[in-house]
């Protein structure tokens, strides 16, 4: 009998995933033999919009790329602008930036643990993790004024100072988070159900990581020690004492372990930041008066890996090119490696292991028609033709 492939579509509006994306799984029986990924449901054209905004406005735009990494993108962007201008920011601003970035990592990793539990159908973990994520949001609300999209970064420093009066509250919440996450870590890493679902599933070797160029916790779970915070320190990371978490197994359990253990490191960093902020006084921002023509690059370690921004200036008050590469862009393709050959029931958790963020990734799309890639001119022509056709039909464009 000839072999038959069945296509299992996931998405674009799937009850399990919060974001629109479309995966096709090609299956033979229970076994996954191939995947395909169709992107673009979340594309908003941010790079283009950014070219119409002034340098001070862009942080507000880039933090709306993704609600979970709403500090990493502005941080990478301001790093790029400061690199372009050649600016050194005040020390106090560096610590405030680090504080916010690490608080975000705590909230993002807890969110991931919860969603991973949810993907496995283990809603207890989901509820726990999200319950204990709330204190981090309380801290954020106190310090920045918002639960998400903090609006704190600006080229040259930060927008809002921290007050010493808030520190006791922050510390009490942090202690709370620490005890709870310790409990959660033990519970997750000892749970027979979770072990059965996570151990040995979706293995990526160090070689695979190099082949795909994956970054962040996915790489660190396979024994590849890369972390922008250590390799090319920005903000205050080189002045603080912390360790990179690296494990070597490369399976789903290892990825969960890396993320859970990173939470403790982040708490450690946040505590040190508070201690230093008590001593350092002074300005939190230097004014950027003029941006000279040139190019600047900046990166930041987002909770999901290296987030990269490139800014080109022609001397006016707006960037003429702004390029963004989010970590998920290089991490999502590893899904192919981890899921093909496995069971279809494991597909979703393998996907979750990457901690994919589609709204970050969809700045970019490569378009291929019948196997050949189209160049810029053809795309432009096609786009103009299509817009005309839509206008003729009366569809809102």
């Amino acid at each position, binding site marked *: 009998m000839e072999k038959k492939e069945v296509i299992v579509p996931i998405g674009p509006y799937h009850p399990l995933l919060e974001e629109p994306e479309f995966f096709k799984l090609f299956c033979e029986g229970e076994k996954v033999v191939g995947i395909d990924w169709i992107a673009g449901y979340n*594309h908003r054209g941010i790079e283009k919009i950014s070219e119409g905004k002034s340098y001070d406005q862009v942080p507000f735009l880039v933090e709306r790329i993704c609600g979970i990494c709403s500090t990493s993108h502005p941080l990478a962007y301001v790093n790029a602008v400061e690199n372009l201008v050649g600016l050194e920011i005040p020390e106090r601003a560096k610590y405030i930036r680090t504080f916010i970035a690490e608080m975000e990592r705590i909230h993002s990793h807890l969110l991931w643990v919860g969603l991973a539990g949810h993907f496995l159908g283990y809603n207890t973990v989901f509820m726990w993790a999200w319950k204990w994520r709330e204190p981090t949001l309380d801290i954020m609300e106190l310090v920045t004024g918002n639960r998400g*999209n903090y609006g704190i970064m600006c080229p040259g420093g930060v927008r809002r100072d921290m007050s010493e009066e808030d520190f006791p509250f922050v510390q009490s919440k942090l202690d709370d988070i620490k005890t709870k996450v310790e409990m959660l870590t033990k519970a997750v890493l000892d749970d027979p159900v979770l072990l059965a679902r996570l151990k040995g599933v979706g293995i990526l070797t160090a070689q695979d990581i190099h082949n795909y160029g994956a970054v962040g916790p996915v790489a660190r779970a396979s024994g590849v020690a890369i972390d922008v915070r250590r390799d090319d320190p920005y903000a205050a990371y080189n002045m603080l004492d912390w360790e990179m978490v690296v494990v070597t197994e490369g399976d789903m359990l290892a990825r969960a372990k890396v993320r859970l253990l990173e939470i403790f490191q982040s708490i450690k960093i946040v505590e040190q930041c508070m201690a230093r902020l008590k001593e350092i006084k002074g300005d939190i921002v230097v004014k950027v008066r003029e941006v000279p023509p040139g190019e600047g690059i900046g990166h930041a370690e987002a909770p999901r890996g290296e987030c990269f921004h490139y800014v080109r200036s022609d001397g006016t008050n707006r960037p003429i090119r702004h390029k963004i590469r989010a970590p998920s862009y290089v991490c999502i393709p590893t899904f192919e490696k981890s899921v093909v050959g496995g069971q279809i029931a494991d597909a979703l958790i393998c996907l979750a292991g990457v901690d994919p963020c589609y709204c970050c990734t969809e700045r970019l799309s490569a378009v291929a028609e019948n196997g050949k890639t189209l160049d810029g001119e053809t795309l432009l022509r096609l786009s103009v033709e299509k817009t005309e056709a839509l206008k003729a039909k009366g569809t809102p464009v």
Partner: protein
Amino acid sequence: MANWKINMLTRSPWVFHLAAASCNNCDIEILDLLTPRHDVERFGIVLVGSIKHADVLLVTGCVNRKNVARIKRLYDEAPKPILVVAIGACACSGNMFRTGYQFAGPFDKIIPVHAYVPGCPPKPEAMIDGVVKLITKLKNK
């Protein structure tokens, strides 16, 4: 819409969550509503997996040219009457993405919207408030 139908809807509204091109933050805050701090399941509000079971459609994010057809189709598949609540500045007006080349109009140009919850992202309390206001208004009609 017939009054008795609306009354049925407002008792234990089942919601379906539709994320158009959003930044995720609004979606996370919606999920947050279900978790222990806010726990809207106490009031019989349940997030369902299929639009065919839904009484309320929560929409977030802005509409882009690729998903506009899918959104229309999802709305057509929904059992009527259905209440649509636009959550977040993106869904209400397009936020800062309205100038983008991919933007295909705010939500209320695509499907009828009954309530708007502005904010970027709105707090979970604001979302609850929005739904409660909508329900009270419909009940007193």
